[in-house]
């Protein structure tokens, strides 16, 4: 099959199907609603299920229920909706179930606005829900990358028995780009027989599987948290992804930026290069685990004088950048949050002001 032109939200829906996920529960919210609309057409065509929950709280627990039964399942929402799902995400992580959550971010806090934002960085990477849990968080910068990340998210969720989040800003959901669905990213059946409540008869086993996040015995609860911690440490070792850009040059400024913001930065970097100014960039593709070593190495380059975290939030990722740079160079933040996406010209001005 050749390329077709798709809106990010449609492509995310189709990617779920292509990854073999036939269970989708959601509640509409701008700028993500087209996923639900697309799958309301497509799921019946492929024998799948789309159920609209009565709220995002309900959807979160529908996801938990399906995941506990070993069904491959996902949902999509936008910032305020994801806030409502965070309780269920914590339960799913505590009970070690695989599920995929997509957040097409809009401006906050509160109802905020409907335009693009990256202000849910903390919510996605540092918690959101309660307890010692983490999610593997991937941040696409194009519609094609969103497809690939969604298709990759399901086997990763199953590998770690943990929620995986795709964190895209509103533009990822709303813009149109040509895409194709790679055959090689189709996932294998999961290892659910080992842990899911999918019926002893179904799996021809005499062993009962119990899915729960309640551990009243403090020793057992500590043990569960140690199991989770080991998984998150393993993610840090095995799942870090990032894209370096112009890092072979003798750049004096290093940009760290992700999602569509990084595409604005790329245009700025190309324009600056034409003016004789080299700027390097590390684009985290996973926000948890964060590309700690890549940022440290890039900031440690002899020519590098400053690291700039550029984000559509009021300085959330900059905390991770500061942590990873380890004082090798000063770290500054630049960003906007409210729906206005900084232009390449603005980024060029910021870089020049850092050099002067």
């Amino acid at each position, binding site marked *: 099959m050749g390329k077709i*032109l798709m809106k990010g939200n*449609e492509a995310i829906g189709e990617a779920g199907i292509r990854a073999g996920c036939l269970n989708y529960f959601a509640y509409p919210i*701008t700028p993500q609603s087209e996923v639900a609309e697309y799958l309301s057409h497509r799921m019946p065509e492929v024998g799948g299920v789309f159920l609209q929950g009565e709220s995002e709280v309900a959807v979160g627990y529908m996801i938990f229920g399906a995941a506990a039964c070993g069904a491959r399942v996902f949902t999509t929402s936008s910032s305020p909706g994801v806030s409502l799902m965070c309780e269920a995400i914590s339960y799913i992580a505590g009970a070690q179930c695989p599920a995929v959550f997509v957040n097409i971010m809009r401006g906050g806090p509160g109802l905020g606005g409907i335009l693009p934002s990256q202000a849910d960085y903390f919510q996605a990477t540092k918690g959101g829900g309660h307890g010692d849990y983490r999610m593997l968080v991937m941040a696409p910068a194009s519609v094609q990358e969103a497809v690939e990340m969604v298709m990759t998210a399901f086997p990763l969720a199953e590998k770690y028995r943990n929620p995986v989040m795709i964190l895209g800003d509103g533009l990822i959901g*709303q813009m*149109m780009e040509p895409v194709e669905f790679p055959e090689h990213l189709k996932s294998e059946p999961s290892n659910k027989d080992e842990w899911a409540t999918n019926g002893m008869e179904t799996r021809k086993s005499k062993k009962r599987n119990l899915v729960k996040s309640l551990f009243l015995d403090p020793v057992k609860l500590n043990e569960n948290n140690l199991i989770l911690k080991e998984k998150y440490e393993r993610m840090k070792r095995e799942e870090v992804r990032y894209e370096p850009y112009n890092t072979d040059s003798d750049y004096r400024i290093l940009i760290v930026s992700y999602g*569509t913001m990084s595409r*604005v930065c790329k245009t700025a970097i190309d324009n600056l290069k034409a003016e004789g100014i080299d700027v390097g960039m590390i684009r985290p593709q996973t926000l948890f685990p964060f590309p700690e070593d890549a940022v440290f190495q890039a900031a440690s380059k002899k020519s590098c004088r400053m690291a700039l975290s550029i984000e559509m939030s009021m300085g959330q990722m900059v905390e991770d950048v500061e942590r990873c740079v380890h004082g090798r160079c000063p770290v500054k933040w630049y960003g906007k949050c409210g729906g206005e996406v900084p232009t390449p010209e603005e980024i060029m001005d910021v870089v020049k002001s850092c050099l002067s």
Partner: protein
Amino acid sequence: MDILLEGIIIIVGNYGSGKTEISINLAANRKLAGIDVSVADLDLVNPYFRTREARKQLSELGIGVILPPDKYLQADLPILTPAVAGLIRKPSMLTILDVGGDKVGATVLAALADALDGKTYRMLQVINPFRPFTDTLKGCMKMKGEIEKASKMPISGIIGNANLIDETTADLIYEGYDFVLTVSLESGLPLEFITVPSRLSDEIDMKRFSCPVLKLHRQLVPPWEKAASL
């Protein structure tokens, strides 16, 4: 072959078929040909990438642009300004109504039934065969039926808009033209015009087409790209 459309032209089609890009470019094309043109943004369902994004460029060309009031421009609300009905009652030589996608987007037209009553108009369906749901003749006809049912108005022509945005090639334009020609023949609806990205217009053999061609100067671009001049 020039595009000679006049009167009230209603642009419909599925989500992302290219209605807004076409409305903006058609308005500029006809204005530059000396016709008095107005455009109304009737997209009540799409949150981003709407005609309002090009309001400055259109106004500079002297094209009338009807939009919701400024303070509601970014609202997630289906606001239909009364100025649209006013425009239909006193239309320009060419009045373009840029409608939202699918049957959901076309529903707004039913609210304009009174204003349109007794007026001559043409409703044109934009088709990009490289979009989901309109990649087959059956899909295009299903979309046509749904839009006609929601708007309670008949579609009277087709606009071919085959593209993969930046990855559009000459071969893809030819393939898309053949597809919409088939849709035109099978449905009996005239093919009003097709579009070609302006960057490809030199390498494309225009003699291959039996309908007019609208050169598209892309306006709805992401923040890291620049809109072309109209």
